[in-house]
């Protein structure tokens, strides 16, 4: 399996100048993302995951290193981001929010409406197409952001803990929706999460990052065949082994093991 490379990052470093001095957010990141894969980044809070995605989205500059995105040409947007914070534009209805990316690409109204309607349907918001974000629950707003990113049909989808703030039930439902969408469209997706379960459920590969300044410690291939279903997956005996492996990489429990016995 040697699919073409979509993203190629070498020696990427990112410092922030703050009032408290220089903050090193990313310390020499190397990573490759293949065309059409779902690449998951896990790592402790503050290790620079959001920063990495923001750099890929063109919202942040770099301090050192190279970031290469292989464009396929045409007028498709290079990236579309599902932000970690709620980001549905308050002044647009659900329908206009989902169509926003297409509108900015100059897609004509009739076409973008029909595309938007399809993704609104997929995330289960058809009844709320005319509603404004303030009329939606937190989970529904997050689904608007997911639909907007998919509808805008970018070359790369960037998803920054899109389900992080949701309750377990909604999260599982949205993971399932994401699996459907991904297995149908096979877009290149870079997905950030805190949750090892989520990483193994969704990812083709899982990259584990070190604490700040973030580096890639190791990249794990996730062997589960597609199409996957969220719950069935957890019954696979391989599943537990992979969870333990990522845990070890993240260093969970290491301090306790190292502590002197009383």
């Amino acid at each position, binding site marked *: 399996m040697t699919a073409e490379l979509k993203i190629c990052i070498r020696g990427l470093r990112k410092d922030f100048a703050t009032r408290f001095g220089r903050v090193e957010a990313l310390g020499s990141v190397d990573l490759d993302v293949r065309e059409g894969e779902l690449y998951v980044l896990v790592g402790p809070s503050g290790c620079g995951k959001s920063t990495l995605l923001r750099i890929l989205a063109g919202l942040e500059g770099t301090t050192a290193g190279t970031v290469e995105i292989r464009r396929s040409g045409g007028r498709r947007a290079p990236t579309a981001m599902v932000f970690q914070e709620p*980001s549905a*534009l*308050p002044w*647009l209805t659900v329908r206009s929010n989902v169509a926003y*990316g297409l509108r900015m*690409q100059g897609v004509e109204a009739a076409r973008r409406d029909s595309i938007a309607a399809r993704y609104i349907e997929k995330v289960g918001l058809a009844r709320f197409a005319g509603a404004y974000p*303030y009329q939606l629950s937190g989970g529904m707003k997050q689904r608007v952001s997911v639909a907007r990113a998919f509808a*805008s049909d970018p070359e790369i989808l960037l998803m920054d803990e899109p389900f992080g703030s949701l309750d377990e039930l909604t999260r599982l439902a949205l993971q399932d929706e994401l699996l459907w969408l991904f297995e149908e469209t096979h877009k290149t997706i870079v997905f950030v999460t805190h949750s090892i379960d989520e990483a193994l459920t969704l990812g083709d590969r899982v990259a584990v990052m070190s604490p700040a300044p973030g580096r890639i410690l190791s990249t794990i291939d996730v062997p589960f065949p597609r199409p996957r279903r969220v719950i069935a997956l957890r019954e696979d005996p391989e599943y537990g082994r992979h969870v333990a492996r990522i845990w070890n990489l993240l260093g969970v429990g290491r301090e306790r093991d190292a502590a002197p016995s009383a």
Partner: protein
Amino acid sequence: MPRRPPRGLPLLSPLLILAVWEGLARARLIDVRFFPAPTAILAAAWGTAQSGELWADLGISLERIGVGFVLGTLPAIVLGVLMGLIPLVRMTCMPVVSAIYPIPKSAILPLIMLIFGIGELAKWVFIAIGVFFPVLINAMVGVLTIDRIYMDVGRNYGARGLNFLLTIALPGALPVIFAGIKLGFGLALILVIIAEIVASRAGLGFLIWNAWQIFDVEKLYSGLIVIGILGYLSSEAIDALERVVVPWRPRA
């Protein structure tokens, strides 16, 4: 659950005051040369309305407010949004704005009449300048206080230039701009009266000034009442406009 107060409640206190006033005036307990009975004022207002004088003055004042308001608001929104978006524009314009803004607008009326004469144009410019500053500053602050996440959404989804202005900056700032428009409208009302007292033979300002000169106290009061009603109705109209233009804000 707290009981809803009955609907007519806000009318109660003004009606009570009017009733007491009427009683005191009829009993000659207050000087009716200064505080004529409300019924006498109403009769005088009815007279000016019937003769058409009131409507003519009201129409003239409304036109001046309307023209001056539009003339001041539109450029203020455009420049204010640009100042919010582009640091260079902000840093260039801000010193000038800070220098001119604190000057009481009534103080510049003589200068405006010197430049634009005493015709309608001077009044439009006078009102426009008054409205311009609160709207300008609110538009700028409105853009500057837009949540960064929405700016990021615009940039990430490819909004550039005019697209960014129309889909992110302007709608994001609109609630604050409306607060500026309300301030500006209140100011326009004050300024039109000042201009008409100083340099006009028509309009509501002239009506009350003229009433003072001929010591027609009832007419003076009816002018004040009309100005009060005008202020109330126009603030209701702006609120209604806001509900149409800013439909995404949750309302009580």
